C-alpha cells in the first residue's frame, strides 16, 4: 500500500523583495498562507510546482511545503513554515508587521 499523500502548498520568495509568497488556485502569488491552493494530489502538486518554476521574473526557489486544511484555508504543518507566515520572533518585522499596516 502506498503512503498517503500529505497535502501541499507551493511557496517561494518574491524575486524583488524576497517576501514569502504562496501560489493560489487562480495563479496569483499571495503573502497569506491561508489563501494558498491546498493540493491534495501528488501529480497535481508536481504540475503546480512546474508552473511556479516557470515564473522566473516573479519568484525564486519555489517548493512544495506540507500543509493541512484549516477553518479559513490551508495552515502550515511544520514550525519552519509557520515562522515563514509571520517573520522573525525577535522584532515586529516582516509579514506580521507589513500585513497589519
Amino acid at each position: 500500500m502506498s503512503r498517503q499523500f500529505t497535502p501541499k502548498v507551493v511557496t517561494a520568495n518574491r524575486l524583488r523583495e524576497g517576501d514569502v509568497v504562496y501560489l493560489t488556485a487562480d495563479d496569483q502569488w499571495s503573502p497569506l498562507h491561508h489563501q494558498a491552493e491546498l493540493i491534495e494530489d501528488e501529480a497535481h502538486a508536481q504540475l503546480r510546482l512546474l508552473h511556479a518554476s516557470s515564473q522566473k521574473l516573479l519568484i525564486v526557489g519555489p517548493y512544495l511545503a506540507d500543509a493541512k486544511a484549516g477553518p479559513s484555508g490551508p495552515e502550515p504543518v511544520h514550525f519552519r513554515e509557520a515562522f515563514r507566515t509571520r517573520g522573525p520572533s525577535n522584532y515586529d518585522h516582516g509579514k506580521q508587521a507589513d500585513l497589519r499596516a
Partner: protein
Amino acid sequence: MYSYSDFDESFVRARVAQFTQQVERRLDGSLTEEEFRPLRLMNGLYLQLHAYMLRVAIPYGTISPHQMRQLAMIADTYDKGYGHFTTRQNIQFNWPILPDVPAILSALADVEMHAIQTSGNCVRNVTADHFAGAAADEIEDPRPYAELLRQWSTDHPEFQFLPRKFKIAITGAPNDRAVTRAHDIGLRMVKNAAGESGFEVMVGGGLGRTPMIAHTVRNFLPVADLLPYVEAVLSVYNTLGRRDNKYKARIKITVHETGKEEISRMIEERFAELRPLFGGHDQELLEDIRAAFAPPAFRNAPLGAYDAFYKADPTFRSWADTNLSQHRNDQYAIVTISVKAHGQTPGDASSDQMRMMADLAERYGHNDLRISHEQNVILPHVHKSDLPAVHAALAQVGLATANVGLISDIIACPGMDYCALATARSIPIATQIADRFEALDLEHDIGPMKIKISGCINACGHHHVGHIGILGLDRAGVENYQITLGGDGTETAAIGDKTGPGFAYDEIVPAVERIMRAYLTVREAPQETFLQTVRRLGLDPFKAALYGTEGAQDAA
C-alpha cells in the same frame, strides 16, 4: 588604519558596476536564478527565510567611525534601522530588497567597504584578535599580516573555486581571543630563541558537523614566509580536498584523512617550490601596510578623575570591572561595548547606537573601532580619564550593559528567525537565558561564563567551544536543544561534550539554570570558574542536575 590604494578602489568599483548589471539582467529575465545565484553569492547576497540578506566584510574586525556611520546610513535607508554583527566579524543586513543592493554596494565602496568573498568556496574575511594593537599581552599587532592576506586572497585566481569555504584567523597574542584553533588556518604569533617574530601555523580546525581542533604544522614560520606558506597550504588543499562530498570537503577532513605528518610533508614540499617565486614584493607591500597600522599618539594625562569616579559610582565601577581590559599603555583601557543588553538580540546594533559608537571613537578612541567575534564592539584605545564620559554616553543609547564575559554575554547565530539553513531558533533562547539570570541576580556570582548557541549543525554560533554549548535541532518536527559542556575557544581549545538527550524549546532555559545551580553547589570556591569545575569533575554532577536520578545512576 589601512586606506584603499588606487588598485583596491578601482577593483571594488568595477565589481559594483558588474554586479549592478547582473542585478539588472536578473530583474529583466536575461539571467535565470540558477545563473544569478553564484553571482549574488560572490557579492555576499543571500536569500534567507523572509528576505534577502547582505553580508558585508569588516576585515579583521577593524572599522573607522566614518565607516560605522555609513553602515548606520545604510541601515536607515535600505534596511530596518539596524545591523547584525556576526561571529566572523562581518555585519549582516537582514531586509534589503534586490533592486537596492547595487546602491548599497556603491555606498559601501564610498567608504572602502564591500561584500566580496563573504560567501562562496573561497578565502573568506580574515578574522583577528579584536584587541589587536592594544592588548597588553600582545607580541605584535597581527593586522598588517591580516591585511596582507586579504590583499593576496582577494580575487586570487587559483583559489576562487576551492573544494569548500576557507577561513583564516590570526592573533598576535599568546591568549587566543580569535578562536584560531577552530579555523581552517590559525596563525598565532610567537618569538623564536633569537627573539624574532614568526607564526605558529595551525591547520584543519573547524566546527560544523565534524568539529576538530587544528593541528600545528609549523611551530615557527618566519614572518617573511607567510604568503608562500599559506599559499602552499591552500594549494595542497585545493588538490586533495574532497569535491565529491560537501560534508567532507573542508580542510579539517583533508587533514584528518591524510594524516598530520603526511599533509605537513606535502605542505613543506609545495612551500619549497613556491618560496623562490616570492621575490620580495610581498615584503615591500607589508612594509607599506605596517605604516598604516602605526599606533596612535597616546595621550599623557592625569588619572585622578578616573580613580575618584571609580570609587564613587557603583554603576560605573561594575561596568569598569566587567567591560574593560588591560591596555598596553597603563593610562589607557580597552573598552568592550556590550551589544548584549538583557533581552535584546545578541549582536544587533541600531543606527543610533552605531552613530554613538562612531562619535565616541572619534572623541575618545583615536578613531578606532573593532567588531569582536563575540558580537560586541570594541573601543581599543580609551584614556582612563575619559571612561566616565564614555560610560555615560553609552548609557544614553542602551549600550552600557556591564556583562562582558558573563552568562548574558551570549553568542547566538540568527537561527530560524532569519536563516534558511537553520533547524531551530537561537535568538529567543539567548534573550530568555539573559533575562532569566538577570532576574535571579546570579550573573556576577556565576562569574566568567561563555554560552554559545547555534540554530543548526553548521555551528555559526560556535556552540562546540562554548563553556555551555546549545545546538538547536529539528527532532520530528519540534525544536529540540542539545547541550554540550566544557568547550573552550581559547589557547586551551577544546570541543564540548554532549550531556545526553536534548531539551524542548520551553525546557532549555530551566535546564541551563539547573546546570548553573549545580555549578554553584559543587565549585570549590567562587574563584573556580565553571570551565575549571567541569574540567575537575567531568560531566557527572551536571548530568545529574539535568536528568535527575537516572543520570546520577549512570554517573555512578
